[in-house]
């Protein structure tokens, strides 16, 4: 008992207004000085587990907790969160939401002030913490002006100054770009190594933390909790990093947890993979095997498309067809902030484009400018209005929307009706396509041309049932009733119509907003960081939907920090920095060459063109057959 920092014995938690326990008979011990990684699907009770460890559950959230949670011998039964403040530090997902003061230095001191530490101690600890986290030059800066990674480090620092023996972090890197996440993770490992603090991290993106973890705690959707060594627990965990999946596929034992482990195990695999490349090719060419590199725009992930499926692949159509053209886009905000500095961009039908770049590089501003509802200081954005009936060119039943054939055909008719109704007023002939500026269209017409799912997707929802939102979406788009509902069923089946949108999981909320926006069947769909807070299953579902849209000739743009998602889903990657485009090309080319944006499988198989476990599987399966 002496060396256990956190011990849960027979803990069950039932949240208010619910009959099913979120956590069931949990027995868990985390030893002092360990780094424990908590994994589990969305809504599986990861946050509840962390909440129970700091006393927020049930003191703050309500509900019933049976059993005992002890932190260094202190039972949360008798101690409120504030009485544990000297023992436990909690860092949330959105650091800005937890800040009490407004400058870095005061924020670091706040917790100590509450504990009543003497002024001299506080002064010393603030300086030490500033140095430990490498943020000494930011001491007087307003918290809102920091970048996401810096904010998260300040949040960690602000709990660290109270010298807690346990730190709980709930998805600390989910909002951060890869570089910012690295900064934060380096800080976390430093805590474990140098300060002997016990750290518990809940994280969806296991690939970021797994190789640092001493213990993995797995929370299943039914509320059972298992814990064990990472390499043992990952063998059959439903949440796994790409490296682990590659290891499972290749049958490596022990399972590799880091890219380094996997690379050492992968010598044989790499040789087999290289053998699958066309002979005479000393340089891998990427997934677009149909097009020689260096010539024209590559076509996308043809290797992914099973033969016999007529995805629009022809180079000629691809280069001619442009769904949206942006020229010299500049977005400037008051206070002399240049968010987008003269970007030219062409979006092609049938292509998923990923926009990447560090926090605050202008991704969101660019998307809003492209959509037409956001600020556009200068430049032009023109979208191609499809001639009447274009919506039916997409082929139903592609990989993405397998089994949702009815949905696809429904939306096709939808698009026909809506296009007719809108073109009726502007007098389009319906034979040739014409370009329009979405900005100048009325909002209703604009969204049927360029749709967007904003970063805080829930802003679009305001009714009290899912069914109500769907009906409202049908009315807004002027389509037959039930269209939105069928789309939702295809994207995320099984959501009760009477459910309140607020009670949906992150993935379900996104699915609902996506369905609402797809009801208008836009030719271009923009998604601003849709992968935030999604578990791997929800991300895979989203990826399927987006691929399905592209297969139907829609153009999709996704801004994201998630390199694995990009590897999975996109044909083309645009990397932005300081409002400018610094790289634009096929996913394979852009991503493989970048140390920050390379997905794990690519790091393992480098310099090969394989980005995901599926790519590897396909390549080897192709040889076998």
């Amino acid at each position, binding site marked *: 008992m002496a060396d256990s920092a956190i011990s849960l014995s027979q803990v069950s938690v039932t949240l208010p207004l619910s009959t099913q326990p979120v956590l069931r008979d949990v027995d868990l011990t985390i030893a002092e000085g360990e780094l424990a990684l908590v994994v589990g699907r969305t809504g599986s009770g990861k946050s509840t587990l962390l909440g129970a460890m700091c006393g927020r559950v049930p003191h703050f959230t309500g509900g019933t907790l049976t059993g005992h949670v002890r932190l260094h011998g202190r039972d949360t039964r008798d101690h409120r969160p*504030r009485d544990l403040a000297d023992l436990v530090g909690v860092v949330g997902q959105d650091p800005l939401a937890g800040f009490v003061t407004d400058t870095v230095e005061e924020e670091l001191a706040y917790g100590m002030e509450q504990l009543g530490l003497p002024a001299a101690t506080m002064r010393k600890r603030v300086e030490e913490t500033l140095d430990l986290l490498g943020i000494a030059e930011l001491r007087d800066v307003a918290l809102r002006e920091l970048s996401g990674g810096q904010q998260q480090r300040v949040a960690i620092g602000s709990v660290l100054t109270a010298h807690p023996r346990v730190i709980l972090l709930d998805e600390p890197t989910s909002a951060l770009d890869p570089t910012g996440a690295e900064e934060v993770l380096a800080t976390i490992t430093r805590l474990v190594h140098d300060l002997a603090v016990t750290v518990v991290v809940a994280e969806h993106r296991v690939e970021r933390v797994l190789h640092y973890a001493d213990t993995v705690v797995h929370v299943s959707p039914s509320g059972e909790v298992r814990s064990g060594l990472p390499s043992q627990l990952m063998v059959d965990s439903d949440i796994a990093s790409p490296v682990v999946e590659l290891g499972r596929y290749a049958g490596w034992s022990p399972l590799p947890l880091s890219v380094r482990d996997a690379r050492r195990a992968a010598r044989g695999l790499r040789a087999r993979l290289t053998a699958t490349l066309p002979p005479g090719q000393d340089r891998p060419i990427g997934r677009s095997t149909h097009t020689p590199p260096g010539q024209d725009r590559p076509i996308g992930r043809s290797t992914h498309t099973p033969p016999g499926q007529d995805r629009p692949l022809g180079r000629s159509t691809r280069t001619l067809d442009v769904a949206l053209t942006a020229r010299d886009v500049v977005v400037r905000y008051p206070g002399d902030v240049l968010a987008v500095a003269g970007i030219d961009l062409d979006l092609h039908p049938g292509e998923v484009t990923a926009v990447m*770049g560090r926090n605050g590089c202008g991704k969101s501003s660019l998307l809003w400018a492209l959509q037409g509802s956001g600020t556009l200081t200068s430049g032009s954005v023109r979208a191609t209005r499809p001639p009447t009936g274009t919506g039916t060119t997409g082929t139903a039943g592609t990989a993405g929307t397998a089994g949702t054939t009815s949905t696809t055909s429904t939306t096709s008719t939808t698009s026909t009706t809506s296009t007719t109704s809108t073109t009726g007023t502007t007098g389009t002939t319906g034979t040739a396509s014409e370009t329009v500026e979405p900005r100048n269209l009325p909002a*209703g017409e604009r969204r049927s041309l360029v749709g967007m799912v904003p970063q805080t997707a829930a802003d679009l929802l305001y009714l009290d049932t899912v069914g109500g939102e769907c009906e409202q979406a049908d009315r807004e788009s002027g389509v037959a009733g039930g269209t939105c509902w069928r789309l939702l069923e295809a994207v995320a089946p099984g959501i009760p119509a009477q459910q309140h949108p607020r009670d949906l999981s992150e993935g379900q909320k996104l699915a609902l907003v996506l369905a609402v926006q797809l009801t208008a069947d836009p030719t271009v769909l923009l998604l601003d960081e849709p992968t935030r807070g999604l578990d791997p299953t929800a991300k895979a579902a989203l990826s399927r939907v987006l691929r399905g849209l592209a297969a139907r000739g829609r153009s999709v743009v996704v801004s994201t920090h998630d390199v694995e998602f990009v590897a999975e889903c996109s044909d083309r990657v645009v990397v932005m920095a300081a409002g400018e485009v610094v790289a634009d090309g096929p996913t394979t080319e852009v991503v493989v060459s970048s140390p920050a944006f390379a997905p794990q499988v690519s790091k393992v198989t480098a310099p090969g063109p394989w980005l995901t476990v599926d790519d590897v599987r396909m390549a080897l399966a192709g040889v076998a057959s």
Partner: protein
Amino acid sequence: MSTTLPRAVHPAAWWGWAVGMAVAVSTTNNPILLLLALAVVALVVANRRGSSPWARAFRLYLWLGLFIIVVRVVLHVLVGLKFGTIVVLTLPGVTLPSWAAGIELGGTVYLEGLVGAAVLGLRLAVIIACIGAANALANPKRLLRSLPSALHEIGSAVVVSVSVAPQLAESVQRVRRARQLRGDTSRGIRSVPSVALPVLEDTLERSLLLAAAMDSRGYGRAGAAPRPHRFVTGTVTLAGLLASAVGIYGVLDTTTPALMGTPTLLIGLLLSGLGLWLGGRHVERSTYRPDPWRGAEWLTVGCGAAAAAALVTLSRTSPDQLAMPLTPLSFPPLPLAAVLGLLVGALPAYLTPEPPRPAPRVPRRGAREEVGASG
């Protein structure tokens, strides 16, 4: 003292100084003295204000003062009681019945009345400039931090609510823009449900997150005082407040017995202070880098008090010296004691430590995303 290191002077000291200046100003309507006081206040602000946003707000107070003077003069011309001999302007007047004596619609405007109105406006404007100076010199958040520890939790709540207001505006803007994505551009009352609900939910969610974070960081963990102690503190504070209320009533109402006035008020204030002290004794919290109260603070308050004392004394002994002679109109006198008193008020501009240099601003990494987007 000007050789001391740069530091922020205690905000309460600046308020004390500003109140002293305001009291001094309120005793006179001599325009020379008023302008001198204004110059003193402006000098101190220019020399000792910090780099914070509210430090730049002093100009707003000056504009407000100018506006007051203009309004005062315009009102005099329109409805003021005209007096004097030197005609400036002849307007058609309306004679009102006797019950409205003191109000004169239009009529001939004399220079004396005009000057009198302008001088009264100027006095109010300078008083407002004094308050503005306190605001510009003293960081309001730091002032809240130096509240007695018994009031600390209220202070925190005020600070938090102040910082929530801009977030609310951001939310509204963000949701409104998101509504456009659904083709809804309605404004006014019809957009209320679709905008207000997400904003309200967003705000509530954020408040809960903040509350949970504050809880986990130990906010409100003080208050472990034993029950009898809490009872005593409560009783003393309540008695103090009651006595203060009665005392103020006694001071303002001259018909009440003398005992009910100043003595009761003093006892009330004393009891209130005692209550605060008792309440704060069991609060286990400390302040990070508390603003010290040293010589410079005493000097600042002292200068304000000296200015007030000089003019108040003069107003008792020779009030003519502080007044603007209107009948007949002539050049105002220049009483030496008052000038010296006001000049003493300017000493903090040179004798207090300089404010700390503004923090070097980090260059913005790229650009901030639009409202609400932290990513």
